[in-house]
């Protein structure tokens, strides 16, 4: 009995549900109805409307295309309240703009889960090319980007779970031509059955042992518009005039992304993470912005990454900010090919960074003004804090490493740099005023061994003596001879030395 299936539209000869003219279409799913639209025909979408579409109601809609996109709208698409499941052999949903409010949407796609494509690729116009998810549950399993927008992506509230899986291809001229890749794309090596990102400067001689992702498989991507300026068939010019490419995740949005490629990425744009909850796993960057990355009262848990957070300027604010970053390279990296001055500014929040590369790396300046920052892990050749200028103006900073790089430092808040004894992984470190172990300024259990500790704290006072305890034993004493005191074997500074713990 087909009537039990609600509306069922199935075509094997073309578009299952569509319009030939530019109309304004309202689809209402009544009374918890369950409805199905599907097609199986070469190069035809299942639901294809040349116009504006607004789908709403209390029911659900399942759309499947076995040979092209499931839901395609040539103008603006609005989805309210419904449950929508799309399954596309190309995109799940594609439109000029996509706004989803209060709905539950699941997208399985060979290409992008949701794609918003501007009609004009030579002019930036954020009235189109955007994706908005407002108080929406969105689940994506894609072989392309989870969400891709030409201009911007805005996620406000709701819960989103995105998983992308990509295909790796080895370095060859034919693969470069077939997939439109450049040499810089071949930045992965194979490790057993898994792939691992390596630094671009490690790739000196490209060979078939280097791999690239055949296509973009980012979690969320915005920007940038490109066009072929000289009609040679290659998109060679990026639209930057009046452009404001951006991704904003805000208002309690709870976002989980497991992605081969960057989890959150803007080309020629910024990323704002404002009162958002992100849990990220990736082979590449957790969050990448070509311009500024602004974090304010956000929780960001990066379980695995190549670089955790990257932007031209990274600013961390908000007492509720909570960042835990695990990375194979830099934890937080201020870098961009688009600007010459790159900075990291920590004004507030809690940060814990585990990095195999530099912990915090900013070419121009790294400024601590507030919050609590813990950096662990980098070994030789990298530093816990790496910048032309590190400024300690406020907040709590505990950065430990082995053979850390000595950077140009300045401090308006008392800070010491200790290098000497090796503290083993698992050691409980406490920093105390004298031997006052009852009231440590700071205590922390190391995950990795280290022999250099950089510590800055509002309660450190010039002229006072502090101890570094390893468990119950005092391993070092530091007398703060100046606002910035360097102590230890390789620092050439005064003081230092072992001691005995309290009994």
């Amino acid at each position, binding site marked *: 009995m087909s009537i039990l299936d609600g509306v069922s539209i199935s075509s094997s000869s073309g578009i299952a549900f569509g319009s030939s003219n530019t109309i*304004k279409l*309202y689809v209402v799913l*009544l*009374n918890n109805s369950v409805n199905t639209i599907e097609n199986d025909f070469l190069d035809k979408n299942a639901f294809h409307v040349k116009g504006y579409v607004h789908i709403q109601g209390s029911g659900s809609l399942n759309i499947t295309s076995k040979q092209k996109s499931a839901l395609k709208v040539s103008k603006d698409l609005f989805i*309210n309240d419904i449950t929508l499941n799309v399954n596309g052999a190309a995109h799940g949903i594609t439109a000029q703009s996509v706004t989803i409010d209060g709905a539950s949407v699941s997208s399985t796609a060979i290409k992008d889960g949701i794609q918003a494509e501007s009609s004009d690729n030579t002019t930036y116009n954020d009235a189109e090319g955007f994706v908005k998810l407002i108080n929406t549950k969105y689940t994506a399993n894609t072989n392309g980007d989870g969400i891709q927008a030409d201009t911007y992506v805005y996620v406000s509230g709701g819960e989103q779970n995105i998983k992308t899986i990509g295909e790796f291809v080895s370095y060859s001229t034919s693969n470069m031509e077939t997939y439109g890749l450049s040499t810089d794309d071949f930045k992965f090596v194979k490790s057993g059955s898994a792939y691992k990102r390596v630094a671009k400067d490690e790739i000196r001689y490209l060979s078939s042992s280097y791999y690239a992702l055949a296509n973009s498989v980012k979690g969320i991507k915005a920007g940038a518009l490109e066009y072929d300026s000289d009609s040679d068939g290659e998109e060679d010019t990026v639209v930057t005039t009046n452009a404001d490419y951006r991704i904003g995740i805000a208002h309690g949005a709870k976002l989980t992304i497991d992605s081969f490629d960057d989890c959150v990425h803007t080309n020629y744009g910024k990323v704002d993470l404002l009162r958002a909850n992100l849990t990220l796993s990736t082979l590449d960057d957790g969050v990448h912005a070509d311009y500024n990355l602004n974090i304010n009262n956000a929780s960001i848990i990066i379980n695995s990454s190549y670089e955790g957070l990257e932007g031209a300027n990274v600013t961390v604010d908000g007492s509720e900010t909570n960042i835990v970053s695990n990375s194979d390279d830099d934890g937080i990296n201020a870098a961009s090919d688009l600007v010459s001055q790159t900075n990291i500014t920590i004004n507030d929040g809690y940060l814990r960074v585990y990095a195999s590369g530099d912990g915090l790396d900013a070419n121009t300046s790294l400024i601590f003004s507030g919050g609590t920052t813990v950096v662990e892990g980098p070994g030789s050749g990298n530093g816990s804090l790496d910048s032309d200028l590190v400024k300690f103006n406020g907040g709590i900073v505990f950065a430990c490493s082995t053979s850390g790089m000595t950077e140009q430092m300045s401090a308006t808040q008392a800070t010491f740099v200790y290098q000497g004894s090796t503290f083993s992984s698992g050691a409980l470190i406490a920093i105390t005023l004298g031997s006052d172990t009852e009231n440590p300024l700071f205590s922390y259990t190391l995950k990795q061994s280290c022999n250099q500790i950089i510590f800055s704290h509002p309660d450190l006072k010039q002229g006072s003596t502090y101890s570094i305890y390893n468990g119950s034993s005092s391993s070092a004493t530091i007398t703060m001879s100046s606002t910035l005191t360097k102590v230890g074997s390789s620092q050439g500074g005064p003081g230092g030395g072992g001691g005995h713990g309290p009994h």
Partner: protein
Amino acid sequence: MKKRTFPLLVVSALMLCGCSSSNVNLDENNYDTDPISGISDDGVANDYDSDYTKDSDVEIPSSFDSFSDNTISEAGHYYLQGSYPSISITASKNSEVYVYFRWSIHFFILWNCFW
């Protein structure tokens, strides 16, 4: 058609407070996965919200327009139920077409009563 407009976001001032704790213990799980549960505005709306307002209420008409041959050729309100090989909308440019999908539970009950 009855419309209801919700002002999506009301921008309020963001109150930032500094980290006041001086004695900090960052042992295991002290702040690993503490989610931020509150939802409040923080200024981001200006950059992203534009003038969008939710519009999800449509008054269902008491009668519907008819169509044939799986083709909707005029602006109007149409009720779809059951199975179709395809639906093609050929209404003229900028026409407003309303399509209502419904699960025919009444047929289901009727069928079971008599079977």
